[in-house]
Every structure is written in structure tokens, then in C-alpha cells.
């Protein structure tokens, strides 16, 4: 008999999988982007179920609130208003299937070998402090590297946009 | 301009044009130079070199039983010498055609199109020979005298599909809209002009250009104006205004009404400036008939015309601010405007279409309560102007939205015949009230504001200042108001007083005739330029000895000002279009007539 928490977890896990499948299967590009947002949201819910509330809410802010919206924005800018039929992946089925299957096998095998920690009880002050300290102590280099890469991407984007205008 | 001036100019021109020009004494008191058709371009160039830099109008008169049949009356102004010149071209009945002058004065473009539309006169070398006010499928040219009034066929139906262009008889087997479809493929027709460069509506073409259709139902076009805007990204590359949605044939209708009745049409042209229109019309008719309004009437006319200017500017300010999202100034402006309309109601019983200024003076004297109400208004108004300015003039958002937006260079403004505050914003303090005074404006002390950049903000500042100057004029006029008659005592125009009717048979008959038929005007033409809130308004009136105007040509400021809109929008953003349209203060009734 699974506990309530486990049922909730299973529910969001199912939503995540269904959402992810819908992203690649629906033909309307706008709907695909919406399904992506649903997937992100349920992943955030999974984080929260696992007591990783900071990560979960950051996921909502960044992925659901910003990245998905930007995708929708780009689609609205470029597509016809309603009824536009986006790219269909039908023609790419034969190529996509083995690749996806391969990735799936690799991931499952790797996850199976990983030593999973037992569930952690929630920390009294929340996880934000711990994560913050980890970022500027243990993982400082990775953190700074990520920001440098993002900066480079930013400058590159500006450069491309400028190029096009002139 | 006096006949002698015209004669002197004529002598100068004679040296160059020889027998190709002659002198006419029409319009009365001013005269005009009659130019032979083939040399009109040359003459226009010469006129422009003689400092006639402001293009005002080309009117047409159809003298049906004369030969040559058509008179084209060109009017150009010299802003430097403060005078204007009429010159005429007479055209034959068969295939009337004349060279276009739209490359000399850009503003001639629409006026020539209107002549093409209304008289069927073709202009050689015109860049865009299409109808302008009437629908494209219209048959005939309405202002020709042989075009019957009520001759048009109109089908009234509630079903969109039933409304079809009745004057284009559909060929057998064609559907109702075949006429429209034919138009769309006719070279030079409406859609062809702008669309070859771009794809269908809303879709960018290969160069990324896109057509945006603004209006005719759009809250910011101030009426039924349609703009076809070609965009390159966010920037406007071309604009094509489409007008005529509100065309009511006022010039044609006036020909069927008596002079007193036609007055009521002028109210309805520029419905925000009815008394200004009444005044312009009355002055022209008075000049044609040869009477003058008495002094009290003239002073009251100045007061009423300035009040009208103020209320017209208030509507402009309120709606202009509302277009830019500032709600409150609208209500403040309408508070004062209502005060003025209350006064109009007091004097005439009507708030807008007063017809109070009429040929010969005023309809009647103002009631006793008018002056206290005016005094009350005069006391509060200056501080109210301050209120509007507090909200807008130094507001950073307002500055950002209006500075450097919708620029119009002075040369363009003059060539297009842009007048009023839209011209003064571009830097030339030219106002008919100063340049060619009427109603004794030369005796009032006031100033003409002018901007420097010709942008939306400068036009705004000019109009705000004009509110103050109008206030100043009214104050002076109030001080010189003295009791006296408000109608001319010329019995040709004004019926005899009631008490005479009891003891004079002749008076009774005369009263009856003026009341039923109206007063008659002699053969001739007359023209008096005036300055309304929107700019140069003049009526060119021709009489033929009957009690009806043979021709009433209205040169309206909005028509000319709107024509310069594409120049102002060029290179700007779509969001600026709203600000720019608001700033030229057009009234579509004034554009389409």
C-alpha cells in the first residue's frame, strides 16, 4: 500500500511522461510548447514532493515562467494565429526511435547503478541556504563557469541580432 | 489681394507669357489671371518663383452653357508678401485635360484627384489618377451641372451580400462583386498602388515589408479615415490615406439650396468649428452680394469665432491626450468646452450646429445673459489652461511620446498647403488673421505662436498658446462691444422689420420673397480666406443672379493637412502614427465634405 506521498509522486511522474510524449507527438507547435510547460511544471512538483522546494520553485520561475513563455512568444511571432500546423515528426520516426531507445537504455542502466540516498527529512530553515553555500563554496568553479558560458551566449545573441538588422 | 495687385502681377507675367494670359475681374475685388491650358505648368512655376510658396486650392466651376465650359481656379498664397493669387484655366467640354502641377506643389495631388472625381477633368502626368471621394466604381462626375441631383442609385439593405455597386451593371453570369474584383486588377487602382511591393494583408513579403490596415473603424483615426500603412519591421515606409467615407456631397447640395439654407451645410462640414465655417461662408457671400455686417455684428463674430477656436482646440487636446492614454485631460477639456457650448445654446438654442453667423450679420442679437456667462468663462479659463499644461507640457512621458515625432519640414508643409497650427509648428508664424485680416483682426493685439522642429510637441505647444491668444482677443473684443444693430440694413439681403409689414405692401412682398426664395446674388465669384481652428478655410462662391449659389467650393484645412500625413509618418513607428494623426487635428467631415 503506497503512502499518500508516493501516490502524489506517481501522479506527477505520470504527468511528466505524458507531457513529454505530447511535446513530440502533437502537431501544433503552440500546443507542443504548452505541453512542455506542463512537463516543466510537473517536474517542479516532483522536486517539491522530494522536499527540494527551492529547486522546485526555481524551476517554475525559470522554466515555466520564462523559458516556456519565450518559446510561446517566438511561436506567436512567427506562426499564423490559429490552426497553424507545425512540424510533424512523422517523417523522422525511423531515425528518432533507435536514438531515443538507445538514450533510454543508457539512462536506465546508469540510474540502476547509482547509489540512491534514502529520503531526507525536510530541513527546518529550507534548502535555500544550503544550496547558496554550496554554490559559492564547493561548486564555485562550476557556478562561475556556467555564468561565463551564459554571458558568452548572451553576447553572441546580441551580435547575431545586430548583424541581421544592418 | 486687390485688383490692382493682380493687374500689376499680370503686367509682369505678360512680358513672359504674352497673349497666353489675360486678366479676369473675377473673383470680385481681387481678379484673377486666366492662363491658357498648355502653359499652366510654366505659369505655376513662375508664380512659385514670385514667392507664392503656399499652395491652397484648385477649385472647379462648370459653366454649362458657356464655352469653354470648365473654369479651374488655382489659388496660391505668398506667406512672405501676405497676399494670394487666383489664376484660372478654362477648359473645353470635350475631353477636358490639363497638365498636372503636383510635382510643383505636392499638395495639388489630391485637389487634382478631386477635380478628376467631381468634374472628370484629367491631369496629364498625374502620379495617381484615381477617384478620391466617390467610390471607385462610381459613374459620372457629380459636380458637373448636367449630373442630376438624386441621380445616384443607392441600394439600402441590411444584408452585406446584397449591397452591390449598382452603378456598375454586372455583366451576365458575374457575381455582385465582380466590379470590385475588376478594380483590384486594374492598373493604377487602389490596391495595386501599394500591394505589389508587399504580400497580402498581414503577411510580410520577401523584404519583410508588411501592409497594416488602420481604420476606417479605428478609435484613433478620429473618424472614418483609412490608412494603408506599409511597414518595414516596425518602421513605416509608405502610407496611403483613403478618404471619402464621410463624403456627403455638401458642395453639390449647396447648389440646390438658397444662400441662407446653404449656410446650414457649412455647420456640418467641420462640426467642431461651426461658427468659424459660418463666418467664412458669410464673408464670401457678403462680398459677392456687396454688403457689410454692422460693427456690433463684426465684434460679436470675432468673439464667437474665437470661442469656436477655443472649443475646437479643446476637443483636439482632449482626444489627442486620450489617444496617448492620458484620460484626465479629456474630461478637463470637455468641462470648459461644455461651458462654451452652453453659451452657444444660449444664443442660438443649439449646441453645435448653430448657423448663428449668417450673411448680413448675425441671426439675432445675443441675449442679456450671454455677456455674464462669457465673463464667467473668461475669468476661469486662463487657470484651466494652466491645468492642462500641468498635466502634459513637462510630463516626461508626454515629452518622450511627442518630441521628434511626426516631423514636417516647413518646405513640405507649404507645398502641401498645410495650414493652421500644423504649419506654425513647423516654424512659420503664418495666420490669415494677421496676413490678410478680416473682421477687423488687424485692430486686435495678439501674437501668432510658431514652433521650430515641426514635430508633434511643437504643434501641441502652438495650439496651447493659441488658446491663450484667443482668450486675449475675446477680452479685447468684449471691451469694444457697443450696442447697435447686428444685421445689415441692406434690404437686398435682410427682410424688412416686422412692424413695416403692417403698413407697407411692398415690404410685405419683399419679406415674403426673401423668406421663401431668398436673396439673390449677382453674376460673379467671391472668395474670402479665413483662419479657423484647423487652418485656412475659404469658400469660393460663384453666383449667377439666382438666389442659390451657382457653385460653392470649400477649401477646407483638414483636406490639405491630411494630405501631408504620409510625409510626417515616413520612417516613424506605428505607435507614433496615433500621436501624429492626433496632432494634425483633422475632422473627417471637413476632409470629405
Amino acid at each position: 500500500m503506497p503512502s499518500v506521498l508516493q501516490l502524489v509522486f506517481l501522479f506527477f511522474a505520470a504527468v511528466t511522461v505524458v507531457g513529454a510524449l505530447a511535446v513530440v507527438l502533437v502537431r501544433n507547435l503552440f500546443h507542443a510548447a504548452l505541453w512542455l510547460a506542463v512537463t516543466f511544471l510537473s517536474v517542479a512538483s516532483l522536486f517539491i514532493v522530494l522536499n527540494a522546494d527551492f529547486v522546485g520553485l526555481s524551476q517554475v520561475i525559470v522554466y515555466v515562467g520564462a523559458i516556456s513563455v519565450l518559446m510561446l512568444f517566438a511561436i506567436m511571432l512567427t506562426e499564423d494565429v490559429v490552426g497553424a500546423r507545425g512540424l510533424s515528426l512523422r517523417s523522422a520516426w525511423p531515425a528518432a526511435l533507435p536514438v531515443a531507445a538507445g538514450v533510454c537504455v543508457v539512462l536506465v542502466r546508469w540510474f540502476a547503478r547509482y547509489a540512491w540516498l534514502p529520503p531526507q527529512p525536510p530541513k527546518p530553515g529550507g534548502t535555500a541556504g544550503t544550496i547558496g553555500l554550496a554554490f559559492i563554496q564547493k561548486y564555485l568553479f562550476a557556478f562561475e563557469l556556467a555564468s561565463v558560458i551564459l554571458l558568452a551566449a548572451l553576447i553572441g545573441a546580441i551580435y547575431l541580432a545586430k548583424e541581421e538588422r544592418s | 489681394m486687390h485688383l490692382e495687385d493682380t493687374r500689376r502681377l499680370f503686367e509682369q507675367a505678360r512680358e513672359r507669357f504674352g497673349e497666353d494670359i489675360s486678366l479676369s475681374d473675377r473673383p470680385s475685388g481681387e481678379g484673377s489671371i486666366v492662363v491658357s491650358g498648355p502653359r499652366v505648368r510654366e505659369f505655376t512655376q513662375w508664380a512659385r518663383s514670385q514667392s507664392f510658396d503656399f499652395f491652397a486650392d484648385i477649385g472647379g466651376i462648370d459653366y454649362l452653357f458657356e464655352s469653354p465650359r470648365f473654369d479651374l481656379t488655382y489659388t496660391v498664397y505668398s506667406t512672405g508678401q501676405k497676399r494670394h493669387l487666383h489664376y484660372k484655366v478654362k477648359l473645353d467640354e470635350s475631353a477636358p485635360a490639363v497638365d498636372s502641377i503636383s510635382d510643383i506643389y505636392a499638395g495639388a495631388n489630391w485637389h487634382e484627384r478631386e477635380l478628376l472625381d467631381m468634374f472628370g477633368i484629367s491631369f496629364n502626368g498625374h502620379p495617381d489618377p484615381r477617384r478620391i471621394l466617390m467610390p471607385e466604381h462610381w459613374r459620372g462626375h457629380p459636380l458637373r451641372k448636367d449630373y442630376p441631383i438624386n441621380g445616384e442609385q443607392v441600394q439600402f439593405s441590411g444584408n452585406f451580400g446584397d449591397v452591390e455597386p449598382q452603378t456598375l451593371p454586372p455583366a451576365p453570369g458575374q457575381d455582385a462583386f465582380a466590379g470590385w474584383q475588376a478594380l483590384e486588377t486594374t492598373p493604377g487602382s487602389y490596391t495595386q498602388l501599394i500591394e505589389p511591393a508587399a504580400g497580402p494583408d498581414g503577411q510580410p513579403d520577401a523584404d519583410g515589408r508588411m501592409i497594416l490596415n488602420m481604420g476606417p473603424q479605428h478609435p484613433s483615426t478620429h473618424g472614418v479615415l483609412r490608412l494603408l500603412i506599409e511597414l518595414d519591421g516596425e518602421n513605416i515606409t509608405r502610407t496611403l490615406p483613403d478618404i471619402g467615407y464621410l463624403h456627403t456631397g455638401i458642395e453639390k447640395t449647396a447648389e440646390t439650396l438658397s444662400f441662407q439654407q446653404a449656410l446650414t451645410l457649412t455647420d456640418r462640414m467641420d462640426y467642431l468649428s461651426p461658427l468659424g465655417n459660418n463666418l467664412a461662408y458669410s464673408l464670401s457671400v457678403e462680398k459677392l452680394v456687396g454688403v457689410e455686417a454692422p460693427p456690433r455684428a463684426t465684434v460679436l463674430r470675432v468673439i464667437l469665432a474665437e470661442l469656436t477656436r477655443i472649443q475646437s482646440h479643446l476637443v483636439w487636446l482632449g482626444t489627442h491626450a486620450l489617444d496617448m492614454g492620458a484620460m484626465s485631460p479629456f474630461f478637463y477639456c470637455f468641462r470648459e468646452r461644455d461651458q462654451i457650448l452652453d453659451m452657444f445654446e444660449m444664443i442660438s438654442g443649439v449646441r453645435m450646429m448653430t448657423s448663428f453667423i449668417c450673411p448680413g450679420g448675425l441671426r439675432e442679437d445675443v441675449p442679456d445673459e450671454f455677456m455674464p456667462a462669457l465673463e464667467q468663462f473668461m475669468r476661469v479659463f486662463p487657470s484651466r489652461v494652466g491645468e492642462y499644461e500641468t498635466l502634459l507640457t513637462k510630463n516626461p512621458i508626454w515629452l518622450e511620446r511627442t518630441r521628434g515625432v511626426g516631423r514636417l519640414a516647413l518646405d513640405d508643409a507649404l507645398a502641401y498647403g498645410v495650414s493652421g497650427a500644423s504649419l506654425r509648428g513647423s516654424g512659420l508664424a503664418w495666420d490669415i488673421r494677421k496676413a490678410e485680416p478680416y473682421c477687423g483682426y488687424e485692430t486686435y493685439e495678439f501674437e501668432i505662436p510658431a514652433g521650430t522642429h515641426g514635430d508633434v510637441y511643437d504643434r501641441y505647444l502652438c495650439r496651447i498658446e493659441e488658446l491663450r491668444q484667443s482668450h486675449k482677443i475675446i477680452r479685447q473684443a468684449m471691451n469694444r462691444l457697443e450696442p447697435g444693430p447686428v444685421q445689415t440694413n441692406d434690404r437686398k439681403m435682410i427682410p424688412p422689420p416686422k412692424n413695416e409689414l403692417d403698413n407697407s405692401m411692398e415690404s410685405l412682398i419683399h419679406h415674403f420673397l426673401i423668406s421663401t426664395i431668398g436673396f439673390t446674388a449677382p453674376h460673379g465669384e467671391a472668395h474670402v480666406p479665413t483662419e479657423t481652428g484647423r487652418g485656412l478655410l475659404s469658400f469660393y462662391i460663384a453666383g449667377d443672379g439666382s438666389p442659390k449659389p451657382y457653385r460653392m467650393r470649400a477649401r477646407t484645412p483638414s483636406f490639405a493637412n491630411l494630405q501631408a500625413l504620409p510625409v510626417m509618418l515616413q520612417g516613424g513607428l506605428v505607435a507614433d502614427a496615433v500621436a501624429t494623426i492626433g496632432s494634425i487635428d483633422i475632422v473627417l467631415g471637413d476632409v470629405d465634405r
Partner: protein
Amino acid sequence: MLFDLIASFIKAVLVFAVVMSFVPFLIWLERKLVAWMQQRIGPNRTGPFGLLQPIADAVKLIIKENIFPSGVEKITYFLAPMMSMIPALAAFAVIPFGSPVRIMGRTVNLQVADVNIGILYILALSSLAVYGAVLAGWSSNNKYSLLGGLRTSAQMISYELPIGLSVVSIVLLTGSLSLNEVVRSQASHGIWNIFPQFLGFIILLISYNAELNRAPFDLGEAESEIVAGYHTEYSGFRFAMFYMGEYVNMVTVAALVTVLFLGGWQAPFGPEIPLLWFLIKIFAFILLYMWVRATFPRVRYDQLMALGWKILVPASLANLAMTAVIIVLGGPNAVRILSVGSIVLAVLVGLVLKAAVALRTKSAPGLAPPAGAGS
């Protein structure tokens, strides 16, 4: 456990009821207030002082037929109004609206849920609110709706940045993401956050005005340009939900700003009466927004974006950096240093802005010298 559950349930219902009953009152207040500012009377037909007008409007909207215009995408069209209203309501759950009270020997927080990352929770929900505009704009099959949706979504995303960055400065001062903690820290500092974080307060004020889509930043529904923007095609109850969503959002934002900057439920002077001061502060804030709406013209879209990205984002970054440095260097005196610094900064910024406006109007075309010529 049971007690907590019941208390939470009662609090949730109460907060929902109170916030929802605020909405008609706020609509009435805005109409009346703006009417007074504009020399009008405002609603005065239904009920005393027209108080029942919004209720009547709501009833009318609710009993109207639900229309799906032809060509709309039904599911997204149906979801959009909910997406604009639900996040606003849900965000209210973590707002503390009074100091803890003791009931039946237990301490009860006057807050639906004391989430220890409440600030993050509110930011997350407000980032979801944009979906209402996006979905409505897309599904309506109308160009004006699409343009409105585009404008609104770009605007909301852009303005979330300065909001987030200013809020982070508060977090630095507080050392916690819990809104309860934010209020308590203001009590212990003895000074409301508006003083040490004055710049942040101004940035948040402007950014939330844009985030709420209110004039002068109501580009997404600028009636003179794009009719009613993303909700052009909506009518009846669905339109009412958009409308209510806007006002619920306004209440939420006002409550959030009150908690973050104005000391939450604390009394500035006099006795601390539960809820009273909180409500007074919320209303002061809402009245400010209404006043702004009646005063300013609308900015242009590119100017709105420029303001967000070129002024507010750098300013809030600078504010964050300054706050961090002073907290590290100033130690226990940090709040005092920041307060004095903000006042100096505010005066400086004010002077610079005033000078800039003066300069602009000076270089503005003075009217040409009196054109007496001709007379």
C-alpha cells in the same frame, strides 16, 4: 494536527472570501476616485453612492451567454481566464496579514501557509500569471488579441527581472525567504525596509505597475492602439474573470509590497490593531496606483522596454550589489548606513531627474518670438 488543519482551512476560506469581496469594492473605488479626479460623478445609480454597481455588473456578466467566437481554440480559450486569476489568488496564501495570535492556547499565524520560501513562491506564481495573456492572445483568433498577448507577455517577462532583483536585496537584508521573517526583521531593525531599500522600493513600484498592466504601462490593452488587447474576444463571465484577476493581482501586489517594504502589519505609531494597519497600507498603495492611472499618458512600447531593460534592470543590479557590499562591510550597522545612503541617493536621483526634465523642456522649442509682423 487536526487543529492546524481546521485553522488552515478556515484561514484559506476567509482570505479567499475577503480578497474576492475586495474586488468589487476596489472596482467601485477606482471608478469613483478616477471620476472625482476627472470632475465626474462616477457610478451613483445602484445602491448608496453606487456601491452596488460592481455587483450588478458582475451579476450581468455572470448570467450572460458564454460565447465561443468562431475560430477560437476552445480549450486554451477556456483556460486563459483561469490562468490569469488563479495564480493571483494562490499567491495570497503566503502573505502574513497580522502578528500571530493565540487561540485556545495555541499560536496561530495570521497567514494561510507559512512557507519558508514564501518570496520565491510568490515570484513563481506571478511568473505563471503571464500564461493568461499568452493563451488568450493565441486562442482568440484575432490580430488585436495576438498583438496584445505578445505585448503583455514580453512586458511581464521583462519586468519580472527588476522585481526579482529588488526582492533579492530584501532577502539579503532579512536573511530569509519567509515573508513572516521579513516582517519580523523589520521589527527588529526598528526601521521599515523602505528606508534602507528606497531605490529597490521605487524600482518595485514601477515594475509592478508594468507587471499589473496598469496605466501608464497598459500597452497590452491600449484601447487607442489595439482595442482591448488579449481579452478583446472575451465576454460574459470569462471577461469578468480577466477583470477580477487584474484587481486580485493588484491586492496581492499591494499586500506583498506592504510586507516587503512597509513593515507588514506593524503600526507606524499608536497601538497595533490586528489587520487595521495592514489594510491601511494596502489601500494607500492601491490608491497610489489609481492616482497614477488618472494622471499619466501611456508610454510607447519601445520606451517601455527601454525603461525596463536599460534603466530598471541596471538600477536594480546596482542596488543589489550596493546592498550586498554594505551588508558585508557594515556588519551590524548595515541597515543604518543603507538608510542614510538611500536618502542621499534618492535626493540625488530626484535632482538629476528634475534637471533632465528641465533640460529637455528648455531645449524644447520655445515659441518663436511674437510674430507681430503683419499687423
